[in-house]
């Protein structure tokens, strides 16, 4: 979690400095969901992620080096420089890919889970997506089919109360998003996504349920986006005092710090390690190899 936080802060910094191309969404405030869920998965379980993908990738095992190199558009990046922030892949580590299309990754999680089921493999596929994604048709068709076929999938809704600038009440007709699961007869579990331990326990239960063939689970993690939608978002749509207040009350890392009860020195040691890893990733990325222009025509097709 701390790694994700410091990594993303660094990414913001480098982006503002003009080092990184494209656009970026950081998940500051939502780290506990990524970590709590991915820690509950086995190495050969798979995830699909979203436009807000750095945390998921790191939590599923992509190294900070490979991730940072990707953001720098380098050959050493986890997608070889073809993907970028919204298209982080690490198939070996079980990251099927981040998806810049809201809801776009859900069907392939169902399909992956179906493959596990057909091959009698005790593996689970998990999809991350936001509250806003529960409004899209892909969400509906995916959860519906997953439940119909009882595939081993976990649908992790990171409910941060916004879809870009649009607050829940402008985009969701219901307050309790767990009701979404009712339409499919799917089991749902609701958890405080700022509490990494609770999230981890809930995820363990969801993953067990799915893995044992009892069907998919809708895991609703209530969380907060302690930042703009994208890096540079002036957040004109957000009440002025909302963010500073949430930063105080809802920072999952502060909460973890308290619950772990580490000595200040221990925490600082951790900080130092993390900062070092993040700085190293920037060095790694900066020293990385630029793709050749004509490499752009590779990988369009598989042989």
């Amino acid at each position, binding site marked *: 979690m701390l790694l994700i936080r410091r990594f993303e802060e660094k990414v913001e910094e480098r982006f503002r400095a003009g080092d990184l191309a494209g656009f970026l969404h950081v998940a500051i405030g939502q780290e506990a969901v990524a970590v709590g869920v991915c820690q509950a998965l086995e190495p050969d379980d798979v995830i699909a992620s979203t436009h807000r993908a750095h945390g998921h990738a790191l939590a599923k095992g992509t190294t900070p080096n490979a991730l940072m190199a990707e953001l720098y558009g380098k050959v050493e990046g986890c997608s070889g420089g*073809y993907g970028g922030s919204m298209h982080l892949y690490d198939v070996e580590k079980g990251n099927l890919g981040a998806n810049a299309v809201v809801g776009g990754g859900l*069907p392939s999680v169902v399909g992956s*889970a179906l493959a596990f089921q057909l091959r009698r493999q005790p593996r689970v596929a998990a999809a991350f997506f936001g509250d806003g994604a529960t409004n899209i048709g892909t969400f509906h068709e*995916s959860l519906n089919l997953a439940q119909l076929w009882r595939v081993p999938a976990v649908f992790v809704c990171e409910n941060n109360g916004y879809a870009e600038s649009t607050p829940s009440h402008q985009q969701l007709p219901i307050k309790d998003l767990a009701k979404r699961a009712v339409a499919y007869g799917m089991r749902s579990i609701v958890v405080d996504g700022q509490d990494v331990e609770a999230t981890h326990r809930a995820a363990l239960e969801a993953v067990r349920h799915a893995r044992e063939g009892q069907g998919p689970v809708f895991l609703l993690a209530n969380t907060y986006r302690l930042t703009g939608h994208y890096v540079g978002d002036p957040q004109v749509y957000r009440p002025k005092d909302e963010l500073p207040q949430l930063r105080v009350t809802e920072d999952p890392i502060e909460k973890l710090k308290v619950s772990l009860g580490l000595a200040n020195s221990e925490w600082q040691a951790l900080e130092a390690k993390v900062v070092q890893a993040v700085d190293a990733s920037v060095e790694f990325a900066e020293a990385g190899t630029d793709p050749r222009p004509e490499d752009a025509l590779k*990988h369009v097709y*598989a042989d």
Partner: protein
Amino acid sequence: MTEVAISTREITYREAVREGLAEAMRADPDVFIMGEDIAEMGGSMGVTQGLLAEFGSERVRNTPISEMAIVGTGVGAAMQGMRPVVEIMYQDFMTLAMEQIVLQAAKHRYMSGGQHSVPLTLRTQGGAGWSPGAQHAEQLEAWVCHVPGLKVVYPATPEDARGLLWSSIYDNNCVIFFEHRNLYPIKAPVAEQLMPIELGRARVHRVGADVTVVATGRLVHAALTVAEQAAGEGVSVEVVDPRTLLPLDEGTILASVMKTNRCVVAHEAVVQMGFGAELAALIQEKAFDYLDAPIERVGSKFAPVPFAPVMEEYVIPHEADVMAAVKRTLARS
């Protein structure tokens, strides 16, 4: 080369697709099929009849009416190394799944820098001529030919349907496989055993000297009839079916046009922005000095497909339209 006598038998285009599926399923347990009403009912066109009985309900899967999830679930299973074949009942309903086709299936390999492959085959069918109305008659091959990462196949004969379907299923990319509704009942001889046909190879159906007709789907048969008629009038028509529209066998097509110096392109889709536009643009570019006449395009007139048979007949192209185009191109000196 020694000639080998191949024993043949006659089957319909429908049976050919079915054989292609069945053989591919027999050869590899990773091949399975999904779609609406494909199991007990055997598909709305009867293509998958009997497959449930042979392969069971795990590998022959009825789905809900969820075109996005049908395609996307196929994408996911393909990412795991399986070889799903999904069916979209009418290609009109591909419009519901374009996001999963274009932004997911076509791009995962690329966006992952070569980590993924998506060996998914999407079968679909369509075509007018039987008054299905405007929402069951779309011909959308042009759209998917605009999408890097996809392959596009459109067979016109039983032999091609069977052999190309096999190759599509065993291709490591997402292949959009178009069938034509009105071709299902046509019969033609095929080799006793399935013979895979490499993707990306055109078929010269008939050799000719005066004009090349490049046609796809139903229009291949129209072109062949026209060629026969024209022969009676002393005109020698070469008929080429690309069969695979993406990647396109430019060599065969260009060689033909460079020989005949005249070309007609023909398909059922609307002319404007149809696949014939790509053919014409390509041919005029690469065979410019060989052309004795403009490339003529044959296709549907610019309207949705109307219901009333007299109007439908008027909108979609027929042999007479191909013949007229052939004559127009020959009239130029």
